[in-house]
């Protein structure tokens, strides 16, 4: 059958959108597999049934970057809380009901640098959660090394691409030890 109005999409946006959906489903399935299948070890058991998506805390002092990264994470199925300072980040952790699985942390913030924040998060929670993804504009090797030393799980170069964020999230969730 010959169709009169056949639209052949060479639009790269369509392709990107399909890829995003695919990655989103993959991440959601990891969430289900790694979180739902394991015991609750002290956390509220109905947290998981209420949770719509991966709970992420985003820490970035730049309003534009915050807006873009938040949207990116939401597109990947995350439930995002965005804060603009290291202090707000740490106080978010002191509230028991805020169980963030992942922290996406910009390393270059004034007042209290990203490294400091990450170190303190690891002190609060010495187990494997939350996972920490660092965002940096720097291409220096020692930044990467320092991130690993502090116990961060991934480092992403800014400006962040959707595909890169999706890939890193998938990778660290896959490797994360169960609760």
């Amino acid at each position: 059958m010959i169709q009169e109005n056949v639209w052949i999409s060479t639009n790269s946006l369509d392709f990107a959108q399909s890829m995003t959906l695919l990655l989103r489903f993959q991440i959601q399935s990891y969430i289900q597999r790694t979180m739902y299948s394991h015991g609750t070890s002290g956390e509220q058991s109905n947290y998981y049934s209420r949770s719509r998506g991966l709970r992420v805390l985003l820490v970035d002092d730049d309003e534009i970057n915050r807006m873009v990264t938040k949207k990116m994470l939401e597109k990947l199925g995350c439930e995002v809380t965005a804060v603009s300072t290291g202090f707000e980040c740490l106080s978010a952790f002191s509230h028991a009901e805020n169980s963030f699985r992942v922290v996406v942390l910009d390393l270059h913030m004034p007042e209290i640098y990203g490294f400091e924040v990450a170190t303190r998060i690891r002190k609060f929670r010495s187990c494997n959660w939350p996972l920490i993804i660092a965002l940096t504009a720097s291409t220096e090797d020692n930044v990467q090394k320092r991130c690993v030393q502090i116990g961060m799980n991934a480092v992403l170069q800014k400006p962040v691409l959707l595909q890169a964020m999706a890939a890193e999230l998938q990778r660290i969730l896959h490797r994360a030890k169960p609760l």
Partner: protein
Amino acid sequence: MERNPLRRQLQMMRKSFFDQGYLDDQFVQLEELQDEANPNFVEEVVTLYYRDSSRLILSIEQALERKPFDFNKLDAYMHQFKGSSSSIGAKKVKAESTLFREYCKSGNKEGCMRCFQQLKKEYATLRKKLEAYFQLARQAGPMETACRPK
């Protein structure tokens, strides 16, 4: 093939931004994030960028007039400015920011001042172009969804 003439014009305008080096892939990234939940996401981010960064531009301007010259402070401002410019895909603006930072690092006051003038030009040019683009987008109306063969 885009039938709507306004949409065609819009596509051509958009293509020229990339061809002439005003925007880079990061702008495409913003477009990828736009969806039904946030149908004006790109325009919102760009608007926010121009609002926020205008404050930074002013701070840099004031810092350039101060004596003695504080290269560290200038570099810090420009680091922030470069970051946001980079997030919206402002290619030429970003390039000028990088150059400015290099002048700061080498303590070149003349270089900083010249570079900053050029940066402001690029910044203003891009703003005009994007404003025209979003205005045309509003006139052209919402995108028709493509009908894929089953």
